[in-house]
């Protein structure tokens, strides 16, 4: 079964591609959506923390790909629903693409042929929606990631794998902890060959909770709870 990945220029993609390389995992197709914006510069402290988490936040995705002589198809936009990308994946022989970001998948891309796998930073069904790790850290002092096959609804797809993580001991949750937990889960899914096994679990659609972007007051309580 052929598996590819769609990368962007964000920190999540940096963690995904660097960890795939570190673990000698070769995927069947690599797409890079590259708007040319390589993001901000990071302090030495953040870079150090990212390296401790298994990836270097200061290295752009395109640089990692070129340095490791990896073939990739590059688009000059970051939009998962762009017609050029849809055409490309339609003609690919890939069964599953690992999704890293680039918007909410609409019907056209979902029906293009390949399926898309998301690494959502929350244990569903209890943590669906946005910024779930902050809520989970307040509620349970830990958080988790669910890998699932994406469908038209929000975080309701069939579950491939779930992994729990202890809360971090630093404040860089958006920049480092989020990419760290997602990429660790991605490596588990691939190394355990869970995509090929195709034993996916249907979600309980009646139970669960959907969260929205966390308010800065609660975000501060969550982060302060990590470093107290």
């Amino acid at each position, binding site marked *: 079964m052929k598996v590819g990945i769609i990368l962007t220029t964000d920190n999540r993609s940096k963690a995904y591609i660097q960890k795939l390389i570190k673990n000698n995992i070769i995927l069947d197709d690599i797409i890079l959506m590259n708007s040319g914006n390589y993001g901000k510069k990071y302090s030495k402290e953040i870079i150090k923390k990212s390296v401790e988490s298994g990836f270097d936040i200061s290295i752009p995705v395109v640089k990692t790909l070129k340095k490791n002589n990896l073939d990739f198809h590059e688009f000059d936009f970051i939009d998962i629903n762009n017609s050029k990308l849809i055409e490309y994946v339609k003609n690919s022989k890939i069964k599953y693409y690992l999704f890293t970001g680039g918007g909410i998948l609409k019907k056209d891309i979902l029906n293009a042929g390949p399926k898309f796998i998301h690494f959502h930073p929350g244990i569903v069904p209890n943590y669906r929606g946005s910024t779930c790790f902050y809520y989970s850290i307040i*509620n349970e002092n830990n958080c988790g990631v669910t890998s699932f096959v994406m469908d038209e609804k929000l975080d309701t797809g069939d579950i491939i794998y779930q992994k729990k993580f202890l809360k971090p001991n630093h404040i860089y949750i958006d920049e480092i902890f989020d990419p760290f937990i997602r990429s660790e889960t991605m490596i588990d899914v691939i190394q355990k060959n869970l995509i090929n096994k195709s034993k996916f679990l249907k979600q309980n659609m009646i139970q669960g909770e959907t969260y929205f972007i*966390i*308010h800065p*007051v*609660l975000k*501060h309580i969550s*982060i*302060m*709870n990590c470093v107290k």
Partner: protein
Amino acid sequence: MNSKKYQYNEIDCLEFPQKYQMSPYEGNNFLIKYKKSRNKIIEEIKNEEIDIVNYLEENYELNKNEYLKINEKKCFETEKIFEFLLNRILKNKLEFKYKKLINKFISKFERTKKIFVSYDYNIKSNSSNYKIMKNYLILSLICIKLYEEENNLKYLNIALKINDILTSNFNKISNSIDLILLKQSLELELKQIEILINKKGLKII
């Protein structure tokens, strides 16, 4: 760069909605700024009180009839429905169908950051007016009361966002009952944040 003031209600949040995406971490000082900002508004409101339960009871039948319009697939006034729902919460009579309706409004609010004066039975707005503060006040109280009961952070999160809107529009709230409701909502919000901070063993110096 860290702002000296609590920055999420400095400009009119109805005209320029806050997205809250990737908000920066500022440490302990941020929570102090937040508390100061809320307390400043509380202090500016006269020290009057109303019994919310009695206040809502006065229009209960009228509000209930408005709620029944949803089943009749008619349009309804948001304020009356919200008062009806708050009444049900305060009287411990919140049925599953009422909570489902509250959650629909919350999802709607999160997408638009606005509450319109009236909606149809599918909770689609059929008015362009979103500037009636009373609607925000009652939904804020609904969310805080639900948080008190269930400890579900989803509700406290929405209350914080609605109260940012209300405090950013403080100079537009002149009705004395609205002001008292705002005071109650802010006090309850602060109380719940304080409880949460203590529960997590955090110290705000």
